């Protein structure tokens, strides 16, 4: 039977199934239907407004072992939660699960319809995809006291700096990077960024990245990894986008170069946020939180996250992105094993997802690299040229 103990895992898997079977809009429709399952919230809210939601949610919090702060201010027309560690998203992180594009979004997917049915709305909500979020609900048409800056404000927690943020205001999801794109969907942000790009060059750090052939064929729009951006080892010009590896050790150098670049010439920063990897402290280095890369790869069915198995290196993720964007692509210097020889300069070893030279690349494998390069090749076919 399907029990409730591992529900969150197969819930995420189910979203992925619906997306693959139909599309992301079908997933959103599923989330809206989930509000039917939350009839007890609707019933309580119809009877007692925010108090009803509060009482019902408190029961759920006990069942699910929420680690949170939850405040009802009826006079102030405010219901506010601050989730310190979401057990639901935590289950996915702990079990290396990432079947669908954005598990966290499903909460707004059912909360907004339930709130609407009882005459309430989500004033504001943010989640960091690392198991932390906060939300502010009010009954519509009445002023509501803001709670930002209160004692349990999760955004003041140092761990809030992990992950990437999605934000809602007045029931509407806001753009991910307003200065770059009006899109509130990470997939559309990336597509928008590359919309005018005619051809892409993906530059790894293998020998072919700097030879004559590559110099002759490199296009204007280059994607590199964080290590190359930090060191300019194989490409000194301005790339259009960076894939920051899952074990990056060069965030300080990335930040230095990023901030030394005029804002209108800065590259798009992207990162995979893989559940099995440590969460990188982007904010500690004054870097904007990179756009998540997995959603577009999942939507284009170029990547499937299989728990506890190797995943591609950053440069192969970059190649998959080029395939997802369906642009003519030149790829050079992809052979990641070349960088693991003992005599490889230390800065080049960082290019293997910026892995520590002393850390075996157990999260990667040659078979995994080959599989994903084949997927990119199958998608782009004669529009992809791979140079060793």
């Amino acid at each position, binding site marked *: *039977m*399907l*029990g*409730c*103990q591992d*529900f*969150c*895992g*197969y*819930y995420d*898997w*189910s979203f992925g*199934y*619906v997306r693959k*079977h*139909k599309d992301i809009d*079908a997933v959103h*429709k*599923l989330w809206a*239907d*989930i509000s*039917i*399952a*939350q*009839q*007890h919230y609707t019933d309580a809210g119809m009877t007692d407004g925010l108090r009803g939601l509060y009482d019902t949610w408190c029961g*759920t919090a006990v*069942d*699910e*072992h929420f680690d949170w702060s939850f405040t009802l201010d009826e006079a102030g027309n405010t219901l506010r939660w601050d989730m310190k560690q979401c*057990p*639901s998203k935590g*289950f996915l992180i702990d079990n290396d699960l990432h*079947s669908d594009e954005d598990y966290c979004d499903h909460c707004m997917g059912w909360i907004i319809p339930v709130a609407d049915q009882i005459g309430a709305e989500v004033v504001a909500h943010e989640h960091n995809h690392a198991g932390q979020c906060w939300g502010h609900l009010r009954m519509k048409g009445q002023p509501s006291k803001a709670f930002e800056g209160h004692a349990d404000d999760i955004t003041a927690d140092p761990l809030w700096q992990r992950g990437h943020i999605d934000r809602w205001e007045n029931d509407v999801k806001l753009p991910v990077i307003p200065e770059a794109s009006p899109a509130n969907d990470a997939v559309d942000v990336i597509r928008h960024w590359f919309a005018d790009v005619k051809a892409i060059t993906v530059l790894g750090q293998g020998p072919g990245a700097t030879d004559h052939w590559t110099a002759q064929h490199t296009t204007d729009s280059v994607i590199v990894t964080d290590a190359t951006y930090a060191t300019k080892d194989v490409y000194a010009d301005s790339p259009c986008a960076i894939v920051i590896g899952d074990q990056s050790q060069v965030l300080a150098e990335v930040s230095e170069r990023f901030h030394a670049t005029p804002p209108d010439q800065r590259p798009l920063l992207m990162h995979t946020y893989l559940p099995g990897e440590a969460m990188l402290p982007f904010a500690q280095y004054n870097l904007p939180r990179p756009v998540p890369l997995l959603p577009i790869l999942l939507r284009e069915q170029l990547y499937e996250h*299989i*728990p*506890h198995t190797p995943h591609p290196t950053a440069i192969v993720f970059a190649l998959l992105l080029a395939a997802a964007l369906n642009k003519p692509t030149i790829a050079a210097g992809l052979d990641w094993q070349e960088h693991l020889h003992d005599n490889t300069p230390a800065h080049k070893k960082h290019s293997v997802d910026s892995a520590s030279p002393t850390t075996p690349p157990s999260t990667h494998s040659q078979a995994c690299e080959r599989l994903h390069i084949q997927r990119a090749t199958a998608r782009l076919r004669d529009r992809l040229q791979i140079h060793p």
Partner: protein
Amino acid sequence: MSAPDFYFGVNVVFQHIHDHFGKATLIDYWQNLGRDYYHERNMRWQAGGIPTIADDWRDYFDREPNADVDVTTTDDAVTLDIHVCPAIHHLRQHNRDIVPYYCEHCDHVCGAQAQAAGFRFERTGGMGACQQRFVKISVTGGA
């Protein structure tokens, strides 16, 4: 994190897939879930055989609220005597409309799991109490 209200979600997800995509897709969803989502569990079943499957289900039902299940084994099968199905119990307790095909998910999810592990799955009964068996294919000669 065994929160029984999640059974409400299970029921609605089944209904949604059935109503939007049809019964065949719902069955395909269940079978894929059994094969793919539970892949690692299936491999443990395959490696450990009957004792592993039995221990797995004892542990699983121990963590399902209000479940009343006896797990027994023979040389060729694991039998689950489900006196109280925790999902049906909770849905009924809260007066939820249970989709009429709810119990079929066990046939297809567990069936796919069993097949991946070298077993076949049988169910008799349902809607609150049933018997489920995981029978070794090699002993029975089944396909």
